[in-house]
């Protein structure tokens, strides 16, 4: 990747107090997300995935290290600037759904726009966002009527309707079967590439990482990345212009 990272974490550490004990959740983590790429971080339950996302999205401040968005250190931003950043530049897809059961999905997805735009215009953009993620047919539906897969996609539309630069998703493939998972992850990858968006996701299931451009694993608060060693390399030679293949 070249150019400036949309999001950059440099040697970030964060810990929580549980009673008299301090527990380090993130230790010295460095991570970047560039425009046009989807980065997936895997971790077991309690590994600090959600804390990582909260720190990355500016919702929680780290004790040590620097979080920057488009080159700007979040610590140096005023509260007003930070609120604006969270509202306009970072979209967090939450699967909690609307607070009212009566809300149709067209209006739910339009909600983040209503302060700045007329209802009619907001609905038009909402319809476009729902169509973009492939669930235009859900616009008249209510949250309780949707399948798990549709809820995930509507949540992504809700987070993307403001056209943020960074999309953050915690466990986008929870409760989805193999085919639904492929669809959601394929969408996140293509959204990153086509809308020039940075996408950061955390997952408890490794198969969900297969579509990501870059992957990592959280363990003991540290981020591990692929070794660069190929376990199959002894049997494989470079195939000119065709990637890896066998000698022939």
């Amino acid at each position, binding site marked *: 990747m070249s150019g400036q990272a949309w999001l950059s974490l440099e040697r970030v550490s964060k810990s929580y107090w549980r009673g008299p004990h301090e527990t380090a959740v993130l230790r010295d983590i460095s991570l970047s997300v560039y425009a046009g790429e989807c980065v997936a971080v895997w971790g077991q339950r309690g590994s600090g995935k959600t804390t990582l996302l909260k720190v990355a999205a500016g919702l929680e401040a780290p004790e040590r290290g620097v979080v920057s968005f488009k080159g700007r250190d979040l610590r140096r931003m005023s509260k007003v600037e930070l609120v604006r950043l969270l509202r306009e530049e970072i979209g967090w897809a939450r699967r909690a759904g609307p607070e009212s059961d009566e809300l149709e999905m067209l209006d739910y997805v339009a909600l983040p726009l209503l302060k700045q735009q007329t209802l009619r215009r907001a609905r038009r953009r909402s319809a476009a966002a729902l169509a973009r993620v492939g669930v235009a047919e859900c616009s008249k539906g209510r949250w309780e009527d949707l399948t798990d897969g549709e809820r995930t996609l509507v949540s992504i539309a809700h987070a993307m309707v403001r056209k943020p630069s960074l999309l953050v998703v915690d466990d986008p493939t929870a409760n989805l079967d193999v085919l639904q998972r492929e*669809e959601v*992850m394929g969408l996140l990858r293509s959204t990153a590439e086509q809308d020039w968006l940075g996408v950061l996701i955390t997952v408890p299931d*490794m198969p969900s990482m297969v579509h990501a451009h870059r*992957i990592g694993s959280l363990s*003991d608060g540290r981020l*591990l990345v*692929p070794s*660069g060693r190929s376990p199959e390399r002894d049997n494989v030679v470079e195939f000119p212009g065709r990637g890896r293949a066998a*000698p022939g």
Partner: protein
Amino acid sequence: MSAKNVVLGLVIERPGYGYDLARRLQERFGSSGFAPTGVYSALDQLTSEALVRSAGRRENGANERAAPRTIYEATPKGIDRFEEWMLRSSSLAPVRDELYMKLALSKPHNLSRLIELAQAQEEDCLARLEHLKRPAARPRGGPTAWPEVAVLLVRDAEVRQLQARVEWLQKARSIMSKLNGVSERDAARGDRVA
């Protein structure tokens, strides 16, 4: 399991020459540990048992001096044999893992190195996962063809095995780190006493 039945299956899917089959074997089953050169001995065996045969030769376009390549196709007997293999029960692969052996035979002074090995293997698992990445997205809606679903299910199985491995490595690393701390403190105390 030998590569023979897998190579036969690949030839039934689509006739091909040795190099092409070796490449497809690597693409489809790279993490299974089949040596690509094993394709040639598998083709020799399959030919001698009349399970595959030559379907013609393909000139080696770019290199005029190179020998033409034999294209292999399955014989009716080969297709029957493959169907028999599909019906047979599938054995569970034996667990013969070098790290398990080292762990089982290790002494406390080996713990530091074992922790490093466990972390390196976790990073290798992530590297293997990177090799399984498939960039193409499936179009939304419409019927999904079985071959596409089958590839997804096999990849899912491979990735879940890697995940189980990483989860175990992380737990093992955590326990070994705790014990290593204790043994290093004991050693330091011993030094002081000495």
